[in-house]
């Protein structure tokens, strides 16, 4: 059965309906890239998946558990669904390793020694082990984002949500972050990414979902979606980004 199951998701901000009934199923180990113009609702959709935004109608299930409607506490939620932000949001007053250790210690009550081991493991995975005692201000954007990924991974989530994680980076720093995401995908991590990196979407994801004006307009495997768009909106979008 699908790991993530979204049914008929609706969300409005005041009078503006941003999500007009989204249905999506994501299997375990799948990498799904969500693309679309700004304003199509992609970020809002992602933020509903971990309840940063409360949707107005519809259900979200993780495996067979209800995710929404307060069924899961924030602590449980974070252990199932992790998130990496466009603006990293690292804690500036804590070192790299403290950033990664904080949630396991405070939320899961892990011992500091155990948390440190976990932190070192995930930091090694993203290639930031030599910088454990640095402060975020001393790191480049790409390095900070990799630490942010490690921080989310430390909670051992089943799904990782990535909200335009390379959009705020200088072009030469984008590659190192995409490399990390690629290796996570290769290890079988379930990823749902909102991205503008079309090459990454085409090469690494199993499925691409094109959102337009609050609906899933088209969805399919990257090879066919990009070369044979079925709708004019998607062809226009592809033409404008590639």
């Amino acid at each position, binding site marked *: 059965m699908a790991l993530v199951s979204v049914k008929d998701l609706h969300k409005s901000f005041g009078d503006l309906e941003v999500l007009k009934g989204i249905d999506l199923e994501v299997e375990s180990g799948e990498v799904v890239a969500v693309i679309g113009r700004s304003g199509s609702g992609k970020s809002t959709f992602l933020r509903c998946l971990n309840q940063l935004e409360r949707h107005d109608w519809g259900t979200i299930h993780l495996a067979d558990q209800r995710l929404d409607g307060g069924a899961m506490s924030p602590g449980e939620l974070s252990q199932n669904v992790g998130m990496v932000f466009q603006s990293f949001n690292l804690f500036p007053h804590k070192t790299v390793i403290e950033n990664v250790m904080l*949630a396991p210690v405070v939320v899961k009550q892990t011992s500091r020694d155990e948390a440190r081991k976990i932190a070192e493991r995930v930091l090694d995975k993203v290639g930031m082990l030599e910088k454990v005692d640095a402060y975020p201000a001393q790191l480049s954007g790409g390095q900070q984002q990799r630490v942010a990924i490690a921080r989310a991974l430390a909670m051992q989530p089943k799904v990782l949500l990535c909200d335009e994680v390379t959009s705020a980076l200088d072009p030469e720093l984008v590659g190192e972050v995409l490399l990390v995401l690629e290796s996570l995908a290769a290890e079988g991590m379930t990823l749902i990414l909102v991205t503008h990196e079309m090459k990454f979407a085409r090469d690494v994801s199993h499925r691409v979902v094109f959102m337009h004006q609050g609906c899933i307009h088209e969805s399919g495997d990257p090879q066919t979606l990009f070369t044979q768009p079925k709708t004019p909106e998607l062809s226009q979008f592809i033409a404008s980004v590639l």
Partner: protein
Amino acid sequence: MIDFTLWDIVRNLLLAGRWTVVLSLIAFTGGAVVGLILTLLRMGGLWPIRWLVRVYVDLFQGTPLLMQLFLAYFGAALLGFDVSAWSAASVALTLFTSAFLCDIWRGCVEAVPSGQWQASRVLGLNYLQSMRHVILPQALRLAVPPTVGFSVQVIKGTALASVIGFVELTKAGTMLNNAAFAPFTIFALVALGYFILCYPLSRYARYLEKKLYGAGIR
């Protein structure tokens, strides 16, 4: 007429200056304690409480400190308390300080970027955990320069206590002037006294601010 030497004047002013310092310390510490409670209520309480704190702050910021001192003095007398200038001044200045500090500190908590709240939330921290580990440490750093800066306002505020009869630096100055008739010298010395107390604090606050923003806080 008694002849006053310069030393007589300076000595009297120094003795009175002690009370300026004492009153400032009472007002600042008392105000900080009350201000902290008010800030927590303002940020995390139910909306009627938050509204009340807002009104409290607006009242103290929108009315003259002199009036607040008069009201404390005459109000307490009305309630039957035998009020000295000391207690009225202490109470009025403490409440005055608490309102302004609450406003400053609230601003500092709000200045912490919302991304920090979001990151805490997605990592699973609840409100208190987020406040304790992520938000308050950052808010505290932001709060130090304006809090030190406000301490200068407290010291200057004690000068108004002279109007309700509290004998501190300013009152000593006017009393000495009535006896010695050397207003230029006397009030210049009084001003110097306040300057010596306030200027180092002002400079320190400026230094702290430069250190904070010069380091490139995100």
